[in-house]
């Protein structure tokens, strides 16, 4: 125990930014094991006077303060290697952390500097990755199952695919990014076209083997290899898209997952395996809709676990040495 910890209570300040909102969760260890917690939500992404005042009200009480931030930058990811040279050759100059000597998560070096500068007035002690959070949250499942793991947040989702504990694919998607929206629209159009093609194709020759999946997954219709009998229901689901697309963020999320799986299946750089199980870490409390999409559209077995991002972030900070 450090000298500071002897005299002062430990205060963990955890900051999560989503959309145009910043949520700050404070956990203070008072005497005799008593824990005081407080959570406040502020408008805006940039640190402002209200946030500073709120944080200062705790930092005034103790210098033993640890400020943690969940990295919300767009250009972050994970790679199935801990080798610095491999990381450098594949993703360039990034800050990375090796996870259990199996894979690494990274973010652009400028993101670290940007976050440090943005929170200069309060200081930053820890910057955590959503990939690490997702891996820790589903640690038990990752070690035993091959599945897609998704951390669903308000403004982003983090996707990781593991096969026999090996990282096969990882992607962090900013759902606020206009590029993703464009991509989503394009995908929907392609989806419809392909669905039509698939319908025609099925009538002509049918799809009855696994090799045909590469022809199908472009349009997000990868579930169709599972059974020919599903094709009919796929058709009705495709019709259902039209009603769900404009109204739901969860459909947008679903489409992004679909795209991610497309890339995973199509791109030769990835060691593709068939994914039929999805684990959702739901930080939004609205993932049941997404679960329905995944189950109904992609015929996946979906498990949803609620995750409290702020408390998990706080636990990460506590676990850091």
């Amino acid at each position, binding site marked *: 125990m*450090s*000298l*500071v910890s002897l*005299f*002062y209570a430990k205060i963990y300040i955890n900051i999560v930014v989503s959309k145009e909102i910043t949520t700050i969760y404070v956990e203070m260890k008072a005497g005799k094991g008593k824990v005081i917690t407080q959570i406040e939500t502020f408008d805006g992404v940039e640190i402002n006077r209200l946030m500073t005042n709120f944080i200062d009200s705790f930092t*005034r009480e*103790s*210098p*033993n*303060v*640890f400020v*943690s931030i969940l*990295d919300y930058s767009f250009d972050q990811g994970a790679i199935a290697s801990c080798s610095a040279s491999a990381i450098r050759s594949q993703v360039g100059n990034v*800050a990375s*952390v090796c*996870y*259990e000597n199996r894979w690494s998560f990274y*973010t652009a070096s400028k993101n*670290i500097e940007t976050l*440090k500068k943005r929170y200069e007035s309060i*200081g*930053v*002690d*820890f*910057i*955590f*990755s959503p990939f*690490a959070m997702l891996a*820790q949250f589903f640690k038990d499942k990752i070690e035993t199952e091959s599945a897609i793991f998704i951390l669903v947040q308000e403004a982003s989702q983090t996707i990781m695919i593991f096969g026999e504990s090996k990282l096969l694919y990882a992607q962090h998607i900013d759902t606020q990014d206009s590029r993703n929206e464009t991509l989503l629209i394009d995908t929907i159009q392609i989806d419809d076209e392909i669905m039509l093609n698939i319908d025609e194709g099925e009538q002509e020759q049918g799809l009855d083997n696994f090799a045909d999946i590469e022809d199908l997954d472009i349009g997000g219709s990868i579930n169709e290899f599972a059974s020919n009998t599903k094709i009919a229901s796929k058709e009705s689901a495709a019709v259902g898209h039209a009603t769900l697309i404009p109204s739901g963020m969860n459909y947008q999320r679903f489409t992004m997952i679909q795209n991610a799986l497309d890339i995973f299946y199509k791109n030769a750089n990835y060691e593709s395996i068939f994914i039929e199980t999805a684990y959702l870490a739901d930080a939004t409390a609205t993932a049941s809709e997404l679960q329905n999409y995944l189950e109904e559209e992609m015929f996946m077995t979906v498990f949803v676990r609620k995750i409290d991002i702020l408390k998990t972030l706080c636990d*990460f*900070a506590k*676990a*850091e*040495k």
Partner: protein
Amino acid sequence: MKLSYIKPRRKTIFTKDALLLLLFFSVTISMLIGTYASLIYRDQKFSDDKAMILKQKEELELATVKAQKDSADIEKKRLFFEQISTKNSLMSDSIQNLFDLVPSSITLSEARLLEKGLVLYGHTPSKDVYNFMLAAPLHAIFHRTYTSFYPIENGWYSFVSTNHLDDENSITEEPDEE
């Protein structure tokens, strides 16, 4: 497990409040130490001054004793001088008186002044001249007077007159004349 991209900042116990408090106590303690040191210095200086003054006092006392001793010596010497001066004065007067006593017909060849006596050597034309003109005053002055006469060639007499003064307490004896 290390999952953060960055390391935490170094924590210090010296917060702004703690620093202010530390500064306050530092200044207070410094002032107290300063005051204490000043008091110790002044106390030491006072002790040194006191010791020096005591030493000076002892030296002055010794000097006073010496001066008193010197003064006593000087007084003693003064008294001695006065005594001698008085004696000399008395002796001068006595000699003057003695010479006044001696008549012109008697010639003194030698006179010896003793502490309490007078021995005269001289020549007298006759014993009677001596007895009438010199012996009578000598008898008046001295308690005891002895005179011896010796005839000389020219018919005169040489004489030796021994005269003594007795102590005040001693028994006065009548001088024997020859």
